[in-house]
C-alpha cells in the first residue's frame, strides 16, 4: 500500500493498461488453459471469458486518474488492502472483475482463486509480474475455503469482495461483524426468464438455451426459472426440446462443442442430486438424448415441466444445466411469481412490445434485466444483485464505489 499510494494516478493507469495488453497478447494461451482447467468450452473461453477479462482491465485502467469525475462533490480515497475471493465458474474473468477496479481505485489486493480453477489466476500473476507492477500490489494465494477464511478474518484487511454461494456469503458477513471491514457480495441466483406470447419465438428459444446452458449452467445469473405464457407454451416446449436434442456435448477443446464438462465431481453430484429431487417431487423430466462421453464429468441438458412454485428445484440454485418451467396467464401473475424468490440477481423478458418490456423490467426485483437477450456482459455495465443475491456492483462507474472512501 505504501508503494502503490506513492505512484501517481496516471502512472497507475499505465500499469493497468499494460496488464490488459499483456493479457491480450496471451489470450490464446489463457483460453486453452481456462478450458483445460475448468471444462468450459473453448468457444466460450476464447470469445467471451478472455476478451471480457482483458477489456475489464482496459476499462478500469482509464478510470484511475479520473475518479474525481465519478463522485461529484466528494474527495475519493482508496480503502487499503482488499481481500478478494472468486469462484470457479469464470476463473480469469472473475479475477479481472475483482482486481481491475480495486487497482484503479488505488487499493492493493490479495486474491484467492477457487481451488478447482487456480491456473489462469496464476498465469495472471505472471502477467502482472511481467508488467512491472510494484511487488506486493497484487498477491494471489491459492487454497481451499480455509485459506479464504484466513483472508476474511485477517486483522489487516480493509475490505472483502466475494463472489460465490449465498451460504458462504452469509458466513462472511457474519464473521466480519465485529470489525469495520467493508464487504461486497456477489452471490447466488435463481433468475426468471419470462416469455410473453408476443415474443419472437425462435429468438426466445435461443435465449432460453443461452440463458440456462451457457457455461453448463454454472452461471450465477442463469435463467433457471422459465416462465412461458400459456398460449405459446406448446410451441415453445416443442422447439425447445428439438433444440436441446441438437446440442453437442463433449470435448471442451473442440470448437464445435456446445456443452462442455461439469467443473468437478462434487458439482456433478450436486446437480444429479437435484435432478433426482426433481423427479421425486413429481415434475416431468426431459433430457437430451445426445450420447455423453464415457470419461469425464458430464451432465445432459435437462428440463423439468409441471414444476410447482414450492418445489425445491424451483426454489434452490442448482448451478448446472437444469431448467425448470412454469406457465402463466397474466402479466401480474408472472411478476408475482418471478419476484417470489429470496434471490434477485437477474431476469429475462421476451416480448415485441416496448411498453410491456418496460413494465416488466421496472417491476422485476433484480439487478440485471435482459430484454430480448440474455447473459450479456460488458465492462461498462454494472452487474450485481438485489436481496439475497448480494450487494455492491461490479463493472461500470458503479463498480468503483465498492473500492473507495468518499469524504
Amino acid at each position, binding site marked *: 500500500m505504501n508503494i502503490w499510494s506513492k505512484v501517481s494516478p496516471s502512472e497507475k493507469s499505465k500499469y493497468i493498461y499494460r496488464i490488459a495488453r499483456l493479457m491480450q497478447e496471451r489470450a490464446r494461451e489463457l483460453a486453452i488453459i481456462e478450458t483445460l482447467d475448468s471444462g468450459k468450452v473453448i468457444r466460450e473461453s476464447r470469445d467471451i471469458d478472455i476478451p471480457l477479462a482483458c477489456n475489464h482491465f482496459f476499462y478500469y485502467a482509464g478510470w484511475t486518474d479520473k475518479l474525481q469525475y465519478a463522485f461529484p462533490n466528494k474527495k475519493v480515497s482508496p480503502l487499503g488492502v482488499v481481500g478478494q475471493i472468486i469462484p470457479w465458474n469464470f476463473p480469469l474473468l472473475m479475477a479481472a472483475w475483482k482486481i481491475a477496479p480495486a487497482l484503479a481505485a488505488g487499493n492493493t489486493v490479495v486474491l484467492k482463486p477457487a481451488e478447482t480453477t487456480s491456473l489462469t489466476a496464476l498465469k495472471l500473476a505472471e502477467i502482472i509480474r511481467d508488467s512491472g507492477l510494484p511487488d506486493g500490489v497484487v498477491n494471489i494465494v491459492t487454497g481451499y475455503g480455509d485459506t479464504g477464511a484466513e483472508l476474511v478474518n485477517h486483522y489487516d484487511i480493509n475490505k472483502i469482495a466475494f463472489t460465490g454461494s449465498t451460504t458462504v456469503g452469509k458466513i462472511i458477513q457474519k464473521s466480519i*461483524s465485529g470489525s469495520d471491514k467493508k464487504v461486497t457480495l456477489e452471490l447466488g441466483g435463481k433468475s426468471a426468464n419470462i416469455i410473453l406470447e408476443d415474443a419472437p419465438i425462435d429468438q426466445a428459444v435461443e435465449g432460453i438455451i443461452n440463458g440456462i446452458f451457457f457455461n453448463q449452467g454454472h452461471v450465477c445469473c442463469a435463467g433457471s426459472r422459465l416462465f412461458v405464457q400459456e398460449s405459446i407454451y406448446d410451441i415453445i416446449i416443442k422447439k425447445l426440446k428439438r433444440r436441446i436434442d441438437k446440442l453437442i456435448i463433449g470435448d471442451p477443446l473442440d470448437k464445435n462443442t456446445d456443452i462442455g464438462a461439469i467443473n468437478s465431481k462434487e458439482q456433478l453430484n450436486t446437480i444429479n442430486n437435484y435432478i433426482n429431487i426433481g423427479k421425486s417431487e413429481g415434475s416431468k423430466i426431459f433430457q437430451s438424448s445426445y450420447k455423453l462421453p464415457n470419461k469425464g464429468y458430464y451432465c445432459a441438458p435437462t428440463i423439468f415441466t409441471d414444476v410447482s412454485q414450492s418445489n425445491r428445484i424451483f426454489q434452490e440454485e442448482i448451478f448446472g444445466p437444469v431448467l425448470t418451467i412454469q406457465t402463466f396467464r397474466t402479466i401480474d401473475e408472472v411478476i408475482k411469481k418471478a419476484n417470489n424468490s429470496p434471490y434477485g440477481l437477474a431476469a429475462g423478458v421476451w416480448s415485441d412490445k416496448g411498453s410491456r418490456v418496460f413494465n416488466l423490467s421496472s417491476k422485476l426485483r433484480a439487478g440485471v434485466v435482459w430484454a430480448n*437477450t440474455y447473459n450479456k456482459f460488458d465492462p461498462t455495465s454494472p452487474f450485481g444483485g438485489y436481496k439475497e443475491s448480494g450487494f455492491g456492483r461490479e463493472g461500470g462507474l458503479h463498480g468503483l464505489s465498492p473500492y473507495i472512501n468518499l469524504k
Partner: protein
Amino acid sequence: MERLKILKTYKIYIGGSFPRTESGRYYQPVNHKGDKLGNICQSSRKDIRNSVVEARKAFSVWSEKSNFNRGQILYRIAEMLEGRKSQFVDELIFQSLSKSNAEKEVNLSIDRLIYYAGWCDKYSQVLDSVNPVASSHFNFSINEPTGVVGLIADQNTSLIGLVSLLAPIIVGGNTCVVIASENLPLSAITFAEVLNSSDVPAGVVNIITGFLDELIKPLTTHMDINSIAYSGKSEKIKKQLKESSALNLKRINVYSRDWIKPVSQDLYLISDFQEIKTTWHPIENIGGSSSQY
C-alpha cells in the same frame, strides 16, 4: 396555585394510525430537571412486525409514485413542520434543550426536508447512467429503492437525527420502520402527526418508541426488512446489526455524524438506500446504419 400540567400519552405510529403498543406497556423518560416527559409506549416485537407488514404494503404505492410527486409530498412535510414550529421548539426545550438550540434544530430540520424534497426528481439524473457497451445493445443503469428500511434513529437528538436519515430514505422510494430515540422520543411522535397530515401514504413511515435493547433484535432479524440504518457509535449495536443482518443479507448503513452540522446532508445518503438495476436491449442494425443525415 400553579396549573397542573398534562402528562401526555404519546402513541406509536403504524400504518397511518396511532395505536398503543400491542404489549400494553409504557415508560416515562425524564428531562434534565427530572420532569417526566410523558407516557411513552414501550413497544414490543409484535409492534415491529406489524410495522413491517404495513411498510411492505406501502412499498409499491410509494415507490411507484412519480419522483415529482414524492418531491411534492416531501415539501408538504416541510410546510406542515413549519406551521407547527412552536410546538416542536417547546417540546425540544422540555427535552432539555436551550431555546436557541431548540429553534436551530427545528429550523434545520425544516430546511433539510426542503433540501431532500429538491433531490427527489434529480438524484437519478446524477446517479443513473447509460452505459456504452461494446455490443449492439442499449444499456442503462437506474437507481431503485432497496425496499423496507429499518431506521434506528440518533439517540442523542429528538428530531434532527430522525429527519436527517428518514428524508433520504423515503426520497428514494423506500418505506421505513423507525425506532425513535429512547430517552428523547417526543419529537418523533409529534413528527408522526406531521407526516400523517402531509399526504404521506399510510405505512410509508412507521415510528415505534421503546427500549433499544429490546427492539433492535426483532428489527435486524426480520426477514422482510431489506436494509438497516443506524445512527450512533455503539460497537455492541454495530456488531449486532452486522451479525443478524447476515440472515437475509440486509444492507447495513452506519452513521456517526453530527446531524446539526449543515454538511451532514448529501446525495450519497440517498444512494446508500438504492439498488442499481441494469437493463439491456438489443439494437437492430438494419437500415439507416450508414445514414449521412
